[in-house]
């Protein structure tokens, strides 16, 4: 039975057999009532989730969207409808343009790096090795470090005479300014985020790896396929679904990142780490410019939606 299942599953991951798992109607009268009934079942199963999402996310989001069309006077607190003024202000503000550039470049480098590294770690720690559970758990640990402590650790480690520079000196390299230099600050924050994220995403890739039947590898081994060949033709294609999840969830996570920026650099030096979520936080909470801050939230959501849609599309096309 095993080989048969295996082939079936391979076929599935390359085609879209899943779509057809629902009941296949035959007669047209029965068909309608069955469709109605399955739809009802589906929505019954979905309703608690949808209710929670609507109440806990969509309803407050509506208030944010509403705010984005209003202007609040700092002097009087009066709020008035202001049309698209907040949006035009943002889109013509050179400061916002540099926020967009910084955010996009940051994510373009960071997310692929995290996906590749966490997949590599997953492949490594999914092997049968001595004490592998311990090594896996140690790699996972940073995901659980409280945000404020992550910042405390890295602000200390990246100090001019901190741990990282001590290591650099040990191997004979000159000390670096890290967070205090506009050319290195974003990179330093990227390292810190990668450290915190690797083990977390690794867990999801491992879950996907565990889904791949051993029989496939056994069959490939009989064919004399080497390690690399097995990786490219079995493991990676079958990992596509979990990796799609990791890439998308990780992209969203990185776009919404702001605690380390707030604690470590406050967007500086000279705006070099002014990522979009920090800019939103800064405008809304520090500058009190609520309307523009919320307009920026809306723009961020649209931007993310486009990026995620493209990612879905790319991953789907490759499959076909």
């Amino acid at each position, binding site marked *: 039975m*095993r080989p048969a299942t295996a082939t079936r599953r391979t076929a599935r991951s390359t085609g879209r057999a*899943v779509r057809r*798992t*629902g009941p296949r109607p035959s007669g047209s009268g029965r068909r309608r009532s069955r469709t109605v009934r*399955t739809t009802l*079942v*589906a*929505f019954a199963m*979905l309703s608690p*989730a949808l209710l*929670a*999402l609507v*109440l806990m*996310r*969509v309803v*407050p989001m509506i*208030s944010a969207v509403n705010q984005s069309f209003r202007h609040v006077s700092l002097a009087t607190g009066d709020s008035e409808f202001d049309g698209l003024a907040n949006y035009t202000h943002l889109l013509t503000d050179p400061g916002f343009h540099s926020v967009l550039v910084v955010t996009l470049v940051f994510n373009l480098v960071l997310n692929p790096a995290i996906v590749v590294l966490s997949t590599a770690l997953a492949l*490594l720690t*999914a092997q049968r*090795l001595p004490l592998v*559970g*311990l090594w896996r*758990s*140690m*790699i996972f*640990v940073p*995901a*659980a*470090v*409280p*945000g*404020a*402590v992550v910042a*405390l650790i890295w602000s*200390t*480690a990246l100090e001019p005479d*901190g741990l990282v520079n001590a290591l650099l000196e040990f191997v004979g390299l000159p000390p670096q300014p890290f967070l205090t230099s506009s050319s290195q600050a974003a990179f330093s924050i990227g390292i810190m985020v990668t*450290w915190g994220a690797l*083990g977390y995403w690794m*867990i*999801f890739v*491992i*879950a*996907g790896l*565990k*889904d*791949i*039947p*051993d029989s496939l590898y056994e069959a490939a081994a009989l064919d004399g396929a080497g390690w690399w060949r097995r990786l490219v033709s079995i493991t990676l294609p079958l990992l596509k*679904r*979990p990796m*799609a999840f990791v890439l998308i969830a990780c992209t*969203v996570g990185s776009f919404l990142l702001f605690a380390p920026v707030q604690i470590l650099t406050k967007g500086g030096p000279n705006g070099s780490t002014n990522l979009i*979520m920090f800019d939103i936080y800064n405008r*809304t909470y520090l500058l009190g410019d609520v309307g523009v*801050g919320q307009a920026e939230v809306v723009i*961020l*959501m649209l931007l993310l*939606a486009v990026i*995620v849609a493209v990612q879905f599309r790319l991953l789907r096309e490759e499959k076909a």
Partner: protein
Amino acid sequence: MRRSRGGTIVLTTAAVFAALAVFLPVWWVFVSSTRPGNSYVEHMAPLSWLAFVPVGGDLTNYSGLLSGPFLTGLFNSFLVAGLTIAFGLAIAVPAAYALATIDFPGRGIVFTFIVLVAMIPFDAIAIPLSGLFQDWGLSDSYAGLVLPALANGFAIFVLRQFFMGIPSELLEAAEVDGLGRIATLWRIVLPLSKPALIGAGMMLFLSQWQAYLWPLLIGTSPERQLAPIALANLSTLFTVDLGQIFAGSFVLTIIPMILLLFFQKQYTESLSTTGLKG
């Protein structure tokens, strides 16, 4: 799948090296937590090997920590995280299962909606949401702490991805056996999905384990305070006791690691070795 002895040594070395490199900063937190008060800086500028070796340290920070409100905070964090996992999975699993296995009109739209909502930055909507909770009479209650974390679109997303990988003939066979959809989900699908359930559960767990902004916004009274806030309160306005903060951080960090070690067995059982035998 056979590997040579040399291969095992190389791979093990790589895994150990990666684990140690990632763990080093956490280890530094532990060693610093054994230095009373702020005396850890003694070994920081200039950096000495004593920053990484807990020689001459003691556990006073831990005894100080465990006699204060931090212990109540830990209990509350466990309670809130536990409720969040239980209710969060009870909500996410059926939703993900419906999305993965039932072909109904509007499925694409619903899935897109869930992914879109998952992108809403919680920090940006937390203040209006706290106003709503005030109106709903949910301030300062366990329900108020748990509810926002239940709306986790990514938990649904990850479960759906994995449910889609379950062979359809398995589900069809179950239906032939006369099992209903719920029974199939409960008896066939969930036992096969332990890694994904652990992944989704971990997402829900960590979202509460690190909760900071929200519990403060809804005005949580001291007896319902969560651990990260008890930790932050250790540094009062004008005095800092980093030793205790390190100790609290280490406790908060190590607990999820122990949980993961504990779930290791379920986690590493693969579909091929459990589900499809016979």
